[in-house]
């Protein structure tokens, strides 16, 4: 029996999710190899929001995506603050995403490189990334970046939607 990919609301942040910041909640589905995600990340991450980021690698279009998401999750297995540094760094510097660049980041953050290399190919890391991808599909994500205000989908102009969410939060 195959597990469902039918419609379901976007799950609220739960165990194992990556959440940062304070303010109204936004759940984002991002692809670490997506130029549009990278282009808007600097502005999005500076907004006064509680951001939950989820993995949405579109492998057919961007073959490097799954490896980057698995790497980010392998970093998280060692340190959640390091996960965020790694995430910011990948989206901030898309030219340096080959394996040696990843190893350099892992070493610079003082993490265990050998463990990172094992973890990024582990079943639990692969399942963790897949969990996010499937919840995105079920919530109707059709491209990246995609975002939800709580469980409500934000429009194609994600930055505008998130800014509006901040303003609503201030008024509330």
């Amino acid at each position: 029996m195959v597990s469902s990919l039918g419609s379901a609301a976007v799950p609220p942040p739960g165990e194992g999710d990556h959440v940062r910041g304070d303010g109204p909640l936004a759940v984002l589905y991002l692809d670490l190899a997506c130029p549009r995600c990278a282009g808007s990340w600097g502005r999005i991450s500076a907004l006064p929001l509680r951001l939950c980021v989820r993995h949405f690698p579109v492998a057919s279009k961007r073959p490097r995506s799954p490896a980057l998401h698995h790497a980010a999750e392998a970093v998280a297995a060692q340190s959640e603050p390091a996960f965020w540094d790694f995430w910011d760094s990948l989206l901030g510097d898309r030219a340096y995403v080959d394996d040696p660049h990843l190893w350099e980041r892992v070493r610079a953050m003082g993490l265990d490189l050998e463990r990172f290399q094992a973890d990024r190919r582990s079943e639990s890391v692969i399942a963790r990334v897949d969990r996010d991808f499937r919840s995105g599909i079920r919530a109707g994500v059709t491209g990246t970046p995609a975002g939800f205000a709580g469980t409500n989908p934000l429009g194609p102009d994600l930055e505008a939607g998130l800014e509006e969410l901040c303003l609503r939060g201030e008024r509330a």
Partner: protein
Amino acid sequence: MIEPGIPAPGFRLHDHAGNEVALEDFSGRRLVIAFYPLDFSAVCTDQLSIYQEVLGEIEARDATLVGISVDSAACHAAFREKLGLTFPLLADFHPKGEVCAAYGAYLDDWGHSNRSLVLVERDGTVAWSFAAPTPLEIPGANLIFDALDGA
């Protein structure tokens, strides 16, 4: 848009490789048709990439996915290669949009189809159809699974 319960209109179109493909080639298997506006436009690119990611799960439900637009077979071949798509793209190129129109998916004012999904059951009957309200909105893959799983 074509309604469930009626026989799917027949077609004979060239695929990305120039082979003729007909509706009856799929009989005995379920067929998901994704009508989309145009190859290489930004929004279409996202739509088919997402469907590609879940293709294995569609096939696991005894279904075949094909994409249909008014682009030519040669254009489809280039688009497929660019996106790494492995499912067939059919060219409703000449007479332009005839099959799209037969399924109620053609937009006369735009000169291409809308974004529609159709599920044809094993017996050739339309089981489900969905048309996006505007060409800018992409029907999520979740809708395909709702239809295939009879939700």
